[in-house]
């Protein structure tokens, strides 16, 4: 019942549609502005924040450096504590494992803890093909699922919806899949949450199988950790008889003590809270307490491809806080759907190409390759990242991989030809001088058609046809080139002395 990102157009096209939606722009600007201010306030309280960031980055870096060792240790610890470990190379393998476990227990439905990785692999859709209904129990995920919609943010997937829209979705869709919303439902947040609580309660009490992800997996002890705000996760992790957790292999940390900096960094960075409301930890099976059958599916799905990239591998440090989304001026205006993935925003712009690979043929490859360019490289994402992922550095690196992936194309892009021409003229100052003299002539021609004078007296060109020029001048005037370049002036006047 939820949609899919398959077939999304490249970022510039998808962004254009999103930018035209003024309600969406308003919802996003309001929501990201609020959460940015909250984060800034609580981060500002921690004097040693920078040390904490360094510690968090170091923990994840150490884990990734010897990932194979830590994963084997995690498997041993989990098995020793009564859990069953499954290894999945890709989405299909992981989905198959979860479906088989649910079928083995005759389950026609599962309840879900909010989890990015199960969205990444399209678990709900895969289970539906097996006749198994997967119920999202996180409030925002429920809104997305009931609205037959797609998530647009890692932490607040329904950020693109306002409360009036949420009320309509609840009234329309809740009754189709369970307890209907009360007829007198208002758009008061507490009333909406109350309706969701009533609706979900019967699902929690009925479900035999729960599916979760994990924020962290401790190799030393075999402990999985889920961090959430609503208590729905705690319900899923404790009530059903069977628990299946799908965990990306980069979630492993070596020791229990390693959780310390990460659990301090995460809530302040993500929800702007000092401490996380519900932090659930479980270690295999505890007889007589909680699920008595525990499965852990360790998933690759492109993570080893990212690990093999020596600049890009830092992206695997990500703890999914979404601070970079909230800080990003591009995300604030386009929203998450334009990125065509469950991982939107700056982190999505690097994770998707790193995990899927760049330079792939076809529309899907084109969509992925457009993501590293979906940034003005302003650096706001790096500034807020709790594990110090230098996202602008990785973006530039991935752009070079996109370009390199097309170096053997039989018909080079206009951009490639322009860059070669620029390299030619910038490779030698005399050649640049010729180009500038030509530009001075062009400037005199252009200003004849120019409709405007910039404040301060300079002539400007208005709309100019042609691909690159039209993209600029559609909404922006362009100053006409001056009659004389700086270098020509310096030569003519001996640096202004004569």
């Amino acid at each position, binding site marked *: 019942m939820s949609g899919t990102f398959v077939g999304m157009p490249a970022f510039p096209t998808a962004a254009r549609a999103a930018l035209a939606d003024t309600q969406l722009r308003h919802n996003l600007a309001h929501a990201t502005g609020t959460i940015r201010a909250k984060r800034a306030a609580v981060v500002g309280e921690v004097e040693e924040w920078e040390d904490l960031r360094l510690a968090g980055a170091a923990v994840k870096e150490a884990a990734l450096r010897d990932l194979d060792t830590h994963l084997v240790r995690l498997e041993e610890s989990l098995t020793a504590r009564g859990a069953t470990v499954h290894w999945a190379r890709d989405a299909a393998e992981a989905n198959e494992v979860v479906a088989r476990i649910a079928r083995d227990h005759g389950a026609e439905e599962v309840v879900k803890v909010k989890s990015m990785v199960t969205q990444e692999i399209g678990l709900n859709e895969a289970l539906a093909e097996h006749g198994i209904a997967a119920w999202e129990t996180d409030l925002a995920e429920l809104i997305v699922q009931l609205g037959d919609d797609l998530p647009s943010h890692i932490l607040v997937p329904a950020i693109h919806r306002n409360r009036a829209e949420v009320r309509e979705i609840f009234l329309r869709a809740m009754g189709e899949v369970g307890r209907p919303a009360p007829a007198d439902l208002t758009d008061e947040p507490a009333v909406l949450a109350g309706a969701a609580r009533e609706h979900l309660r019967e699902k929690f009490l009925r479900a035999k199988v729960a599916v979760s992800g994990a924020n962290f997996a401790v190799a030393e002890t075999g402990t999985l950790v889920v961090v959430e705000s609503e208590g729905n996760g705690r319900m899923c992790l404790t009530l059903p008889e069977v628990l299946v957790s799908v965990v990306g292999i980069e979630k492993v940390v070596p020791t229990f003590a390693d959780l310390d900096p990460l659990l301090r960094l995460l809530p302040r960075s993500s929800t702007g809270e000092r401490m996380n409301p519900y932090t659930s930890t479980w270690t295999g099976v505890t007889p007589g307490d909680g699920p008595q059958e525990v499965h852990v599916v360790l998933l690759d799905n492109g993570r080893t491809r990212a690990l093999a990239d020596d600049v890009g591998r830092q992206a695997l440090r990500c703890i999914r806080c979404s601070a970079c989304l909230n800080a990003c001026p591009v995300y604030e205006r386009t929203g998450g759907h334009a990125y065509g993935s469950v991982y939107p925003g700056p982190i999505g712009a690097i994770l998707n190409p790193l995990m899927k690979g760049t330079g792939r043929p076809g529309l899907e490859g084109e969509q992925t390759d457009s993501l590293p360019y979906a940034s003005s490289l*302003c650096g706001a994402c790096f500034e807020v990242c709790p594990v110090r992922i230098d996202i602008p550095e990785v973006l530039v690196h991935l752009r070079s991989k996109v370009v390199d992936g097309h170096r053997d194309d039989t018909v080079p892009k206009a951009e490639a030809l322009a860059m070669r021409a620029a390299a030619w003229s910038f490779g030698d100052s005399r050649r640049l001088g010729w180009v500038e003299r030509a530009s001075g002539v062009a400037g005199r021609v252009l200003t004849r058609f120019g409709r405007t004078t910039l*404040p301060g007296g300079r002539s400007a060109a208005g709309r100019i046809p042609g691909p690159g020029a039209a993209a600029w001048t559609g909404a922006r005037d362009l100053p006409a080139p001056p009659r004389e370049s700086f270098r020509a002036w310096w030569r003519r006047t001996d640096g202004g002395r004569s």
Partner: protein
Amino acid sequence: MRVALMVTCVNDAMFPETGKAVVRLLRRLGVDVDFPAAQTCCAQPMVNTGYLDEAVPVVRTFVDAFAGYDAVVTPSGSCAGSARHQHGLVARRSGDAGLAAAVAETSPKVHELSEFLVDVLGVTDVGAYFPHTVTYHPTCHSLRMLGVGDRPRRLLESVRGLRLVDLPGAEQCCGFGGTFAVKNADTSVAMGADKARHVRGTGAEVLVAGDNSCLMHVGGVLSRQQAGVRVMHLAEILASTEEDAA
């Protein structure tokens, strides 16, 4: 001290007045600045679009042009950031140890104008006069790549006659972003329009920044809106004196 002006390709070709202002300003402060004619561009347009091979000859030209100077001063936070933080990457790509060594020698000597004035020359009052209401946009690369902090503000606050008004949302990107401005023109313009709205809201006569490329973008939006707000590079305000006003 041998000081070279790295004027930048954008200023050379499009905004020569900014280069002239740097020369006037530095001479007034007793620095005999030189313009090495072999210079072209910092290679940022190629690097940030992903064309690393194409950036190699440009970085080679850069280090050759500025070899032997004690300091290189540039009226652009973005180009200073490119020289300091990206040239090493390009040199590694070239596999040329000689180029890598030359980059390691040249890169740390590159200073953005406000850094050069405050840190190298140790001045914040440059003797300027500019009797106008001004608002300042801190460009992203000067702010986050270089960390110029409040240096430009301190310089502006010392200008006689100048009234500095705060720009709401100042630290958010204007949406220029190099080739982003064309490759993602719609998003770029949406960001630029929000920046322009904030600028107009201040009632300032002039929007000032340390990067003409960003000003070309926001100024282009303001001009299309016929907002009547002028955009000016920091160097041009700092170079202004009572004689200019008269």
